């Protein structure tokens, strides 16, 4: 505890750091023992609220509370979107507080009672939140031990805690429960901690596998998502949309729509909403709205976007460089140049964006499927010029996020319609709304030129990423002469397209790992080496080497004398959110139909301390399974601002028959700090299949996804 500063407030008079009177705060959450803490990691910067902007604690992002009945509540602005933190956070607390897991309740994503949080993304929850939550739990336990020591008149050092009961180790009959100690207390503590790596081996729950604790209500239909909510007087909204993202409303006539019984049409600027207490009638009324738009299209589509990215007058920011590229290329015996095209992808979660907005007197409450409830609260308060404490955002269960539920457009729309109509408004985006207004995984182009010397060592690596960022392009191989350059829109230059883009599970890393690992494989071919041996020879990162070897062991990989070997085995690796992954896949190619069947994918992952191996494995398998979609099927077709794939009939994602046997190993790194688990395994799948395709056929594909047409085309060229 030596790095901590603690402040204890025991008087009820001072205004606390929430900007709220203490007595009001305790009224809100009840009495007990409360420890505020900050999810912060030494190596990562976690966004904190701008000073003066928030009514909630400015510098504490979470708190836990020991209730008068011994229940432990943890209040956090994080949200559960399927990733399973609802159980892993409980495991962490149970361990540090010595209480049974069922005594711990997570309270998540409610801006009124949970402290500010930047959002649930970046696989940050466990890696940065976890260690601090542990310290808060330790702090709470310290307070409880002190109280118990006074009450039992036994020195704290002589006390032991089992299942929330503190007893005298010399006289086990002398005991007191957490609940008894918390009763009638109003103690709040503020904890500034620097997380340290500790010995995790002594823990009971951390490192053990637990299943989800929300599945029972999810299999009965009881679990409530935003669209399942209902408040009295609620109307469903359908929104008038243009045919293209570039559309500007020039005229609208909704007189016919208003004739549909129970329909109200409201307009707020460009936003026209058709409201009815019956969703189907709102839908039918919308069809009767006559509207005209003006369109101003950029001449670009999903085929020409790559060329326009390369031609554009773009920035050239050198992200990383070392050595001397020119000198490096002079040392090379063989040089390989590769250009890769990666398309736009939709998030395609099954729950479309939904929000319910309700104004009551001077207060606005919005329930929303959102990864960023506090950003939404800010946006609403700004838009309606309301004080923050009059705007409450609540996030029920979220039906998938993957970075795509961070912008909250639907919630702003619902709130504006609620304001304009004076009624509570439920907005459930249609699938067409969803695919049109998604913040897509961006398309991008990679141009990579690199070379090896006669020994098969990489001597030069010149890497250019166009409009797709560089996450995942970090130097993990020994590349003494390298340069990573990022090209993007210059300020005040026209945008190349008008699709909205944003984070998509392991943002940009899917593109960059694809590029690097295809290129590494081509270098292995140039060196006439087996791709495993080539990688091991050129890797410098020990964690990566260990991870790759673990994958090779699990797969039973036998190096081949020639590459391609005809076996259809591919390798790819990479890093994301501090975690290292290596994947090996085996495929079969039907050369007549161009169909690829994935027989097996093996994945090794070093994620540092793994809190819940079962949960982490579920995430890993989920990543690989989701990735099969972008590998074989997904590509958002568009023309100007017209999004052409507006439903699952043409935008296809992973189906059951595509999923192979997935085997995985999570390396035992209990002595290391935890890293992210929700994203890493997705990054290497495009490359591992591409490399297996080469091993099977000797042909290469440089454009995603690997459709049967592209397979046949590549086979023809080979």
């Amino acid at each position: 505890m030596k790095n901590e500063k603690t402040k204890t407030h025991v008087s009820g008079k001072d205004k606390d750091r929430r900007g709220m009177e203490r007595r009001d705060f305790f009224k809100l959450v009840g009495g007990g023992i409360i420890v505020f803490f900050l999810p912060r990691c030494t190596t990562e910067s976690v966004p904190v609220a701008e000073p003066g902007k928030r009514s909630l604690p400015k510098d504490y992002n979470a708190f836990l509370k020991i209730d008068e009945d011994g229940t432990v509540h943890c209040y956090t602005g994080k949200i559960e979107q399927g990733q399973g933190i609802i159980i892993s956070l409980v495991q962490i607390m149970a361990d540090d507080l010595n209480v049974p897991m069922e005594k711990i309740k997570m309270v998540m994503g409610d801006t009124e009672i949970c402290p500010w949080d930047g959002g649930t993304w970046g696989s940050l929850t466990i890696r940065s939140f976890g260690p601090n939550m542990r310290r808060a739990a330790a702090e709470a336990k310290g307070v409880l031990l002190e109280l118990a020591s006074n009450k039992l008149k036994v020195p704290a050092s002589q006390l032991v805690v089992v299942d929330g009961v503190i007893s005298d180790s010399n006289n086990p009959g002398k005991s007191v429960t957490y609940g008894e100690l918390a009763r009638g207390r109003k103690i709040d503590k503020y904890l500034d901690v620097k997380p340290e790596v500790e010995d995790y081996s002594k823990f009971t729950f951390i490192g053990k596998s637990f299943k989800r604790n929300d599945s029972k209500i999810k299999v009965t239909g009881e679990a409530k998502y935003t669209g399942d909510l209902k408040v009295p007087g609620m109307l469903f909204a359908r929104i008038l949309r243009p045919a293209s993202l570039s559309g500007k409303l020039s005229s609208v006539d909704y007189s016919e729509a208003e004739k549909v019984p129970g329909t109200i049409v409201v307009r707020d600027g460009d936003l026209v909403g058709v409201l009815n207490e019956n969703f189907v009638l709102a839908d039918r009324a919308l069809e009767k709205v006559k509207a005209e738009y003006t369109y101003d299209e950029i001449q670009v589509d999903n085929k020409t976007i790559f060329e326009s990215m390369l031609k554009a007058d773009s920035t050239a920011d050198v992200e990383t460089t070392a050595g001397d590229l020119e000198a490096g290329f002079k040392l090379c015996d063989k040089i390989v140049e590769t250009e890769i095209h990666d398309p736009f992808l939709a998030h395609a979660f099954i729950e479309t964006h939904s929000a319910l907005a309700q104004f009551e007197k001077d207060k606005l409450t919005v329930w929303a499927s959102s990864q960023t409830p506090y950003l939404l609260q800010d946006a609403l308060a700004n838009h309606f010029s309301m004080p923050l404490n009059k705007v409450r955002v609540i996030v029920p269960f979220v039906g998938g996020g993957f970075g795509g539920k961070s912008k909250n457009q639907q919630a702003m729309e619902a709130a504006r319609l609620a304001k304009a109509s004076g009624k509570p408004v439920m907005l459930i985006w249609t699938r067409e709304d969803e695919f049109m207004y998604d913040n897509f995984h961006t398309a991008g182009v990679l141009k990579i030129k690199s070379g090896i010397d006669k020994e098969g060592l990489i001597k030069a690596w010149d890497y250019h990423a166009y409009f797709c960022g560089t996450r995942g392009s970090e130097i993990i191989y020994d590349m003494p002469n390298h340069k990573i350059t990022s090209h993007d829109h210059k300020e005040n230059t026209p945008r190349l397209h008008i699709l909205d883009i944003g984070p998509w599970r392991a943002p940009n890393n899917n593109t960059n790992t694809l590029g690097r690992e295809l290129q590494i494989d081509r270098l292995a071919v140039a060196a006439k080496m087996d791709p495993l041996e080539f990688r091991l020879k050129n890797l410098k990162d020990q964690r990566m080497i260990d991870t790759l070897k673990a994958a090779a062991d699990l797969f039973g990989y036998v190096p081949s004398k020639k590459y391609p070997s005809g076996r259809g085995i591919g390798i790819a690796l990479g890093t994301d959110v501090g975690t290292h992954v290596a994947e090996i896949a085996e495929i079969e190619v039907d050369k007549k139909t161009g169909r690829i069947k994935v027989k097996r994918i093996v994945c090794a992952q070093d994620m540092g301390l793994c809190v819940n191996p079962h949960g982490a494995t579920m995430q890993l398998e989920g990543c690989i399974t989701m990735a099969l979609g972008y590998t074989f099927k997904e590509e958002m077709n568009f023309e100007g601002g017209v999004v052409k794939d507006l439903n699952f009939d043409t935008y296809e994602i992973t189906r059951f028959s595509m999923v192979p046997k997935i085997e995985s190993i999570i390396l035992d790194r209990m002595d290391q700090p935890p890293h992210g688990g929700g994203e890493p395994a997705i990054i290497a799948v495009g490359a591992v299949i591409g490399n297996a395709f080469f091993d099977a056929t000797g042909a290469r594909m440089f454009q995603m996804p690997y459709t049967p047409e592209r397979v046949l085309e590549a086979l023809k060229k080979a």
Partner: protein
Amino acid sequence: MEETIIFQLNGKQTELKIDPTQTLLWVLRNNLGLTGTKFGCGIGFCGSCTVLIDNEPVRSCSTTVGDVKGKNVVTIEGLSKDGELHPVQKAFVEHDALQCGFCTPGMIMNAAGLLIKNPAITREEIITGMEDNLCRCGAHVHIIDAVEAAAKEMKGGK
């Protein structure tokens, strides 16, 4: 025009005075408060709105309430009996066959329908039968494991 529609819903006779062209999915969700049946795509391509109609898995987003006149409709809320989870539901819990849980009711209803039709179902047949239900989180392997386990239990026990 409104009509009186009578059908069995989760074992109970249900009578609605309603426009028969209304979509079954929204009638279940809005008029009857059964929100376990989910909206995902509206055109029958994702399966999250699947219910059983006379033991057949059907997409309720592409069915009208008039279509179920005189029929027997079961939703996710009606699958468990006397507080006891249906074997498919139980297997989904035991196999952690879900993540976000949004596609789950549709998956379970589709699987329950498959097992009624073909109690001796093979793993291959399960995969084919579940093919048109979409999951984005990637719980696929666990879902197939769960349905297979439920099939075994139902064959052995009941």
